[in-house]
């Protein structure tokens, strides 16, 4: 029998549903793979062996009893450690939550459980999802399975590396400025940022509330769509959740897989197709554009003049919100407490706790955001960034009057060496140059592998209008059917 870890989620679900494999066998195969490779990859912060096997046994017994199973029943999934899991450690990659076991499940995790998926464990990430390389995890970096000396992207490097290392067929990420799509691109996997409000944020530890979007990660576009369908949809516990059905992303992915894009108009974002990206990335992107044209798509160039201000606007809005969101980490109700010696005051203990519990990138952003919201600076920084946000959204709506979807490289550069960009924080920020506009606008984006540069994966990003997630699945699935597969060297 072929190694169960090499199958797609769709295939595994079929094997379990037909009884050709048990959920326990599927789960055990992935747990074994994790044991074999994760000491080198370090995609996981916590492996919930017992919980996973219990969930798998439950699926098997329900199947035996003839009960109906969900479309992904028995399929393993890894969850970024930014989503709460009842009784299972949830750290957000931070020392300040090192020992926290939440008393509640996030909505996404609840839906994953209800669908019969098997949660293998929690994946590594940049602390509080702030970073683009997973090097800002308080628990050590994750390594890219394509080249262990390189970063797997971030902040959700663990979720994407786990896919590339065949430790899981599915994973969940969260995307505030590109934290699903950029790791997807540099690990040669698929990463989806759904429409903001299309997936629930309840139980997602907040970084920047108006931008944070949880979403599916997989090795194939169809698998991502299947996972998207399970986790998406309205949640009354999240006030910003859109009360509408999930667009039919699974049908769109199947349609795209036929390889026909006749009648689809795609716009290349002029501002993202020239400067700012490595030559190898641009070459792979241009080749992908040609492929899309061959598949029948009409490709035109469109201008989004305010996209150049997306990065600065993002680095005002996200830190501002994070400075407030992270205020609750004070050592009173949960998490780390440092310096409580019976002499020091609460204020001193709180400051010592946050100083010890937060890493350097989190501190930078908290302070930057505190500054941008201060009276006297608010209008020039946070207020102005919100106006720029409006202009960026208008660029999108103008563009979508002309085309069905926009395309660009996902990230300006391929996976870089561990340590290459940590000295200069702003250099790290550039990794999200092309992904940030969708977050500011709220529309969906997908990264799909489109080629290799110097033997390392390059991703193509498809951006669609809000609540038109299905459009980008169709384009991504068509491209996927025409290029690849891109398989990393054996670990």
């Amino acid at each position, binding site marked *: 029998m072929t190694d169960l870890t090499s199958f797609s989620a769709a295939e595994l679900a079929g094997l379990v549903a037909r009884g050709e494999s048990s959920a326990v066998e599927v789960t055990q195969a992935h747990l074994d793979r994790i044991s074999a490779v994760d000491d080198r990859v370090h995609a996981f912060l916590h492996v919930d062996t017992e919980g996973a096997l219990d969930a798998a046994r439950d699926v098997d017994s329900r199947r035996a009893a003839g009960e109906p199973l969900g479309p992904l029943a028995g399929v393993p999934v890894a969850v970024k450690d930014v989503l709460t899991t009842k009784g299972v450690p949830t750290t957000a990659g931070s020392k300040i939550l090192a020992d*926290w076991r*939440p*008393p*509640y499940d996030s909505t996404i995790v609840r839906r994953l459980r209800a669908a019969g998926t098997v949660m293998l464990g929690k994946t590594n990430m940049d602390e509080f999802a702030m970073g683009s390389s997973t090097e800002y995890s308080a628990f050590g970096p994750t390594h890219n399975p394509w080249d262990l000396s390189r970063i797997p992207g971030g902040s959700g490097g663990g979720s994407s590396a786990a896919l590339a290392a065949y430790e899981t067929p599915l994973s969940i990420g969260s995307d505030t400025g590109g934290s699903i799509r950029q790791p997807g691109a540099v690990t040669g996997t698929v990463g989806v940022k759904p429409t*903001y*409000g299309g997936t629930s944020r309840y139980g997602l530890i907040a970084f920047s509330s*108006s931008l944070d979007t949880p979403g599916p990660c997989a090795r194939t576009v169809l698998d991502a769509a299947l996972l998207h369908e399970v986790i998406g949809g309205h949640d*009354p516990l999240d*006030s*910003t959740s*859109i009360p509408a059905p999930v667009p039919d992303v699974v049908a769109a992915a199947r349609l795209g897989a036929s390889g026909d894009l006749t009648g689809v108009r795609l716009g290349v974002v002029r501002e993202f197709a020239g400067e700012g990206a490595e030559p190898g990335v641009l070459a792979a992107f241009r080749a992908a554009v040609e492929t899309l044209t061959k598949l029948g798509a009409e490709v035109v160039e469109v201008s989004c003049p*305010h996209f150049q*201000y997306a*990065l*600065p*606007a993002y*680095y*005002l809005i996200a830190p501002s919100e994070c*400075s407030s969101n992270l205020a609750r980490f004070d*050592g*009173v*109700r*949960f998490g*780390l*407490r440092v310096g*409580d010696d019976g002499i020091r*005051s*609460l*204020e*001193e203990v*709180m*400051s*010592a706790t*946050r*100083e010890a519990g937060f890493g*350097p990138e989190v*501190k*930078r952003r*908290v*302070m*930057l955001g*505190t*500054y941008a919201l*201060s009276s006297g600076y608010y209008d*020039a*920084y946070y*207020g*102005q*960034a*919100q*106006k*720029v946000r*409006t*202009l960026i959204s208008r660029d999108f709506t103008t563009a979508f009057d002309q085309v069905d979807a926009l395309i660009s490289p996902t990230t300006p550069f391929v996976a870089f060496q561990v340590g290459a960009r940590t000295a*200069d*924080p*702003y250099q790290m920020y550039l990794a999200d140059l092309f992904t940030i506009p969708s977050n*500011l*606008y709220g529309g969906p984006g997908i990264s799909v592998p489109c080629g290799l540069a110097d033997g390392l994966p390059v991703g193509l990003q498809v951006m669609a209008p*809000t609540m038109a997630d299905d459009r980008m699945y169709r384009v991504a699935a068509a491209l996927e059917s025409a290029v690849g597969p891109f398989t990393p060297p054996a670990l």
Partner: protein
Amino acid sequence: MAAISREEVAHLARLSRLAVTEEELDTLAGQLDVILQAVAQVGEVTAADIPPTSHSVPLTNVLRDDVVASCLTPQEALSGAPDAAEQRFRVPRILDEDVAS
């Protein structure tokens, strides 16, 4: 000219409840200056008449019915507390009588 002084960074650290060290202050001052210079580019955009966007979803009036839902047990509520006594969260003595509302 630097966008932010070392003193301002020290003030931000206090506001943010971060007991940063002197060496950290030096590093942070330099880094925040670089970042602030870069993000200040938003000021180049003419946007005086543009309404700000605080939410990207066009929703209003998302309201919940006034119906009681289940609570955590006190054990669950206190399960993550660094310190607790008498079924309450224990904190060190409070210096600052900073009660707002």
